[in-house]
């Protein structure tokens, strides 16, 4: 087989580029569809879209292996899809139906899959950080050589529990990778207006935790940094912090007037830094490749449409479900 890695794609094979393209596109189309369903009143409450940040979970997922765990906050659809969870089950949870991952009882912000070792989906800013540290503790305790990717936002980095976690993780050499998704804003507050120091990857310095800033719009850069951090954690050297410098195109949630940033700022990001376009540019060198990508686009639209259909046709939970799952049966 001829080497088809382009010069500027580092070690990425065509095969892996295609797979990243596919994964990122699935997230984007899924989120666009979720936005539509929200607009139609089929999804309620808070719904936080991941559009713009797709390279982060895609690159990190490429750096871990089966048996590793993932936990994040409420902006979680992309993480779930990348972990291998079924888009139908995720979308049906958004619409609050029995076919959803939590039988409709968790909603957009609270979904889990023990099968895929995805531990949520947490609505309290920062809460997933000690939880993820505890999952890493369990990996170490049971000696299964797994690691836990613990994602949180720039806003969450100002939570005290983050530093409590950093301290214990480094003290006990826990196999946890803290992935800070710095999308520049926590709701309407920019990092500059919320944080006394803005080099978020250095937030572990007081605890002796190594950290790196990474171009979170470049899936290959994410993967490379992820591989390094995961190797560090897996061999018993303790936690690692990766600050993924990224951007969310959409509002914080569906009801965001976006007065805190200019249209130009968003537009510039979309045009110059888009993670999907970036991979596409590495791939679409000839006509045949273009056709292959179009085929993927078509296939993804089909998956997303099916998910949306399932999410609308799956029934609401039976009223009897109100009182189930409070305690062990």
């Amino acid at each position, binding site marked *: 087989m001829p080497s088809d890695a382009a010069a500027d794609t580092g070690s990425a094979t065509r095969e892996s580029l295609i797979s990243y393209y596919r994964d990122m596109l699935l997230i984007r189309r899924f989120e666009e569809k979720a936005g539509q369903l929200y607009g139609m009143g089929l999804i309620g409450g808070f719904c936080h879209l991941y559009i713009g940040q797709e390279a982060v979970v895609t690159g990190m997922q490429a750096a871990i292996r089966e048996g590793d*765990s993932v*936990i994040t906050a409420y902006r979680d659809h992309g993480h779930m899809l990348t972990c291998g969870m079924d888009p139908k089950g995720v979308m049906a949870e958004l619409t609050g139906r029995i076919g*959803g*991952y*939590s*039988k*409709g*009882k*968790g909603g957009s912000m*609270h*979904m*889990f*899959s*023990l099968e895929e070792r995805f*531990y*949520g*989906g*947490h*609505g*309290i800013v920062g*809460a997933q*950080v*000690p*939880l*993820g*540290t*505890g*999952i*890493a*503790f*369990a*990996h170490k*305790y*049971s000696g299964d050589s797994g690691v836990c990717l613990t994602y949180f936002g720039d806003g969450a980095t100002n939570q*005290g*529990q983050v530093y*409590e*976690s950093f*301290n*214990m993780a480094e*003290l006990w050499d826990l196999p946890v990778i803290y992935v800070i998704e710095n999308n520049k804003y926590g709701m309407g507050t920019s990092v500059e207006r919320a944080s006394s120091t803005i080099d978020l990857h250095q937030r572990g310095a007081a605890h002796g935790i190594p950290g790196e800033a990474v171009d979170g719009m470049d899936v290959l850069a994410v993967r490379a940094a992820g591989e390094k951090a995961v190797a560090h954690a897996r061999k018993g050297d303790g936690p690692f912090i990766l600050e993924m410098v990224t951007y969310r195109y959409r509002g914080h949630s569906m009801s965001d007037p976006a007065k805190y940033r200019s249209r130009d700022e968003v537009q510039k990001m979309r045009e110059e830094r888009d993670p999907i376009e970036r991979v596409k540019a590495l791939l679409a060198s000839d006509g045949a490749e273009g056709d292959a990508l179009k085929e993927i686009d078509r296939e993804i639209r089909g998956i997303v449409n099916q998910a949306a259909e399932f999410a609308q046709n799956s029934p609401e939970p039976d009223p009897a479900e109100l009182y*189930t*799952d*409070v*305690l*062990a*049966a």
Partner: protein
Amino acid sequence: MPAGLPASVPDNAETEYAGETTEVTVREALRDAMAEEMRRDARVFLMGEEVAEYQGAYKVSQGLLDEFGAKRVIDTPITEHGFTGLGTGAAFAGLRPIVEFMTFNFAMQGIDHIINSAAKTRYMSGGQVSAPIVFRGPNGAAARVAAQHSQEYSSWYAHCPGLKVVAPWSAADAKGLLKAAIRDDDPVIFLENEILYGRTGEAPTDPDRIVPIGKAKVVRDGTDVTITGFSLMMETALAAAEMLEQDGIAAEVIDLRTIRPLDTATVVASLKKTNRLVSVEEGWPFAGIGAELCAVAMEQAFDDLDAPVARVCGADVPMPYAANLEKLALPDAERVVQAARAVCYAG
């Protein structure tokens, strides 16, 4: 202490238990429960401040580090928010943590994880993710430490679906209920009491013997009035019952033992016999356990009531430091006697 308090917790082993027992302090009973469960299940571990090398701030974990090593008996930094969450995450991932709070006053720093992470995740995950974790430590008034170190939390946690709340009194129940809590697949708040740690009682030695969560216990039979209590307040309730006996009033005394799920059947059955109820608790009256019992009595035994339910609670103030005020802030046997006489219309 008011006159008439028993010097030690009487043997409270379940009657069906015919096996061997041994006299232990409540402190030792709790330690033995943890040790037996740690021997039984390698997933069980203990973490908290000073639990390992110091052997526990109240010496409850004495000897555990020696037997189980630093992997399973873990000194944490002073970081309640962090280790409450870390323990909960470990439980999500399949371990069975016992998290000791030096006292429950400090658990307020971690209460977000107790409620939002541990109690709600089974439901929010549609039954997929459970948090089999025990949060334990001393609860309730301690002596002369003032408001921030002296508070009773049972109603705080009992309010929340997804949690179980246990507050034992006797050594046998402390042991049997803690073992049940560790084996339970849901998060359990296990409320101990600093003053009770030194009390002694007979406890089963059989490691398979547990006391089921959710069962109250009639510890003294009577026909005239039902008095409910739990934890340290059992001493107060029993002392009051003895004083009442001298007045010719036969009080039935119930140890609630588990606060959530509350064994309302045992309380209602007793009420049907005595037609009068006095609830004793150390906590504040507003939305307290007594308030809940008032509702239970009204909803489930309205026609059996011969008098309004009486509540004897801690005073509705932060705990004062001054010795005289502190005494006034806590229920004592005299107040329970007064309440019982009032519901019996005994003047």
